[in-house]
């Protein structure tokens, strides 16, 4: 046996914001959450409340399958109710995760490192919630596979010129790519958990999912190129997905939907709502799990700035809708615009303006951006506002269209609400499971930051 005396040296980072963060402290701080499971009372309370939501969702879906979509408030003229509102809301929330993990990676925004893993998980769970709605809304969900091209005996094909079919491809590609991107990013951290795990079962399970990762130079070489290319593909993908969601509306000739501003305006709205959701989740969790060293006030402040910038793009979208309606001179377009601001849904409309345009303006002073309570409040307001925005787009355009004789109102039912609350429960329950079993911050990427600082500073 050839052996040498151990000589240990600290790998400190000469950066005041991360004083004392070392390779070993990163492993200890982050792997401690899934392996030791601290704050178990908080976890169980939160998880059980969310799980009650999951049960409500299961019951709502069961009832829907028994009785059909008539249990919802959808009818003529408003045939697209909560299902589509919630679908667009959830998928929009998901987009911030991809924006943070892919687009900010390509733009070399180092601060994304601490939040990317968590927001990718958020993306995945939001897409899972979103994906449920169009299937339920089909009416005959057992025939969902008719949307996929397969060699059928009827000689039929999906209508590839329809944005609704584009949506099937966009959302399923997005869900698959998000899952794989997240999983590949997890591999090195799963290996860390395998090596740190105390029990045989955990070693086996983390070992199984880590695919035998051992940090080999060749692993990293392929991994890095793959990860960067995946990010490069995810960036246009996320833009395409919400543009297509926007086209679901814009391709219809309905006043209030038929507008070229929709795809970019939807993408901005998606990132706006997604950042609001990230803030809503991260502000309490960093405190409960003592991750303030990793997700710092600076991170929150930067996210607040993105929130404000996106808020202004969304505000421009609202302005453009009204301007277009006026500029076209089209009677119906003008009526829909006026009806939104003064019609029976006017309180919703003005609530939307207050939540999405006024509330974020609170964040101009630095002191308020750094105040977690204010930031949390604004983020909540934007979450609500973005949900109301989709409600306004879907419902106000449909409820009074060309023929006054076919006008009507939309009344969501009990089952509409339980389905919606149920998906919130599903989303939160999945996040709780994620926090319990997987590392919420990417340890490998944090080590890269420490390592680079060390050699370059």
């Amino acid at each position, binding site marked *: *046996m*050839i*052996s*040498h005396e*151990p*000589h240990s*040296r600290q*790998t400190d980072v000469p950066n005041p914001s991360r004083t004392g963060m*070392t*390779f*070993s402290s990163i*492993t200890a701080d982050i792997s401690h959450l899934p392996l030791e499971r601290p704050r178990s009372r908080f976890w169980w309370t939160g998880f059980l409340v969310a799980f009650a939501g999951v049960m409500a969702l299961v019951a709502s879906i069961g009832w829907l399958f028994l009785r059909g979509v008539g249990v919802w408030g959808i009818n003529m003229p408003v045939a697209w109710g909560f299902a589509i509102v919630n679908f667009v809301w959830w998928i929009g929330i998901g987009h911030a995760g991809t924006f943070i993990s892919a687009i900010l990676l390509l733009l070399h925004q180092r601060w994304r490192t601490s939040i990317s893993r968590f927001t990718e998980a958020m993306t995945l769970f939001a897409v899972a919630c979103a994906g449920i709605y169009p299937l339920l809304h089909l009416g005959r969900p057992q025939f969902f596979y008719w949307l996929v091209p397969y060699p059928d005996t009827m000689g*039929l*094909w*999906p209508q*590839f*010129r329809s944005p609704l*079919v*584009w949506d099937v*491809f*966009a959302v399923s*590609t997005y869900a698959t*790519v998000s899952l*794989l*991107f997240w999983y590949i990013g997890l591999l*090195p951290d799963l*290996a860390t958990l395998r*090596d*740190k795990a105390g029990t045989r079962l955990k070693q086996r399970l983390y070992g*199984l999912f880590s695919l*035998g*990762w*051992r*940090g*080999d*130079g*060749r692993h*990293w*070489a*392929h*991994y*890095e*190129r*793959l990860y960067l*290319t*995946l990010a490069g*593909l995810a960036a*246009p*993908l996320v833009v*395409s997905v919400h543009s297509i969601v926007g*086209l679901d509306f814009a391709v219809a000739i309905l006043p209030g939907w038929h507008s070229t501003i929709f795809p970019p305006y939807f993408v901005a709205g998606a990132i706006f709502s997604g950042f609001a959701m990230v803030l809503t989740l991260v502000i309490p969790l960093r405190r409960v799990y003592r991750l303030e060293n990793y997700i710092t006030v600076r991170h929150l402040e930067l996210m607040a700035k993105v929130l404000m910038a996106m808020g202004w793009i969304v505000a421009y979208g609202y302005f453009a809708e009204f301007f277009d309606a006026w500029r076209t001179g089209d009677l119906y377009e003008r009526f829909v615009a006026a009806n939104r601001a003064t019609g029976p849904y006017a309180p919703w409309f003005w609530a939307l303006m207050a939540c999405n345009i006024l509330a974020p303006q609170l964040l101009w002073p630095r002191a308020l951006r750094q105040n977690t309570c204010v930031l949390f409040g604004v983020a909540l307001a934007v979450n609500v506002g973005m949900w109301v925005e989709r409600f306004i787009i879907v419902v106000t355009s449909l409820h009074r269209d060309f023929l006054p004789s076919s006008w009507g109102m939309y009344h969501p039912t009990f089952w509409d609400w339980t389905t919606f609350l149920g998906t919130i429960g599903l989303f939160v329950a999945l996040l709780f499971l994620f926090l319990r079993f997987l590392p919420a911050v990417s*340890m*490998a*990427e944090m*080590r*890269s930051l420490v*390592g*680079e600082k*060390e*050699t370059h500073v």
Partner: protein
Amino acid sequence: MTARTQGILIEFTEPDGLLDAVRRAREAGFTRFETFAPYPVEDLEKVARRKPSPVPGIMLVAGLLGALGGFFLQVYAAQDYPVDVGGRPLFSWPAFVPVSFELGVLTAVLVGIATFLVRAGLPRYDHPAFAVKRFARASSDRFFLWLRDDDPQYSADAAQIFLDALKPESVTEVPA
């Protein structure tokens, strides 16, 4: 020293220690060594003189093929089940762009991940280094170099000469 070994596993506490060792290993003529690090150490592959990963190129080709395949699927569907909308052409290619794009991305990602797994040799659950207890820290805060005994340059003496120039944290034999 009678037990059979598969070479030695050399441990470092710093990425620079590993980089230095790899540089010296190359200079000493070793080729079949493996490095292990808890994060992608910059320049490590360059110093080890290994070829860059072909993954992005393969993904580009796969993506283009996927997009083309998706496009022709739609063109074929439009002819096979013609829907005449006011005499508009059946070959309405702009409407086929979104699905072609999505299928291109999907193919690129699936093929890219498959290529990564094959090239990186994953999944692989048994590896000689796993038999060394200290190796558990390779995924956390230690850096390892495995000098394999099937390297043409490898011998106990050559390994000892190589080690004398280094300041490793520990050196362990890898059991066969």
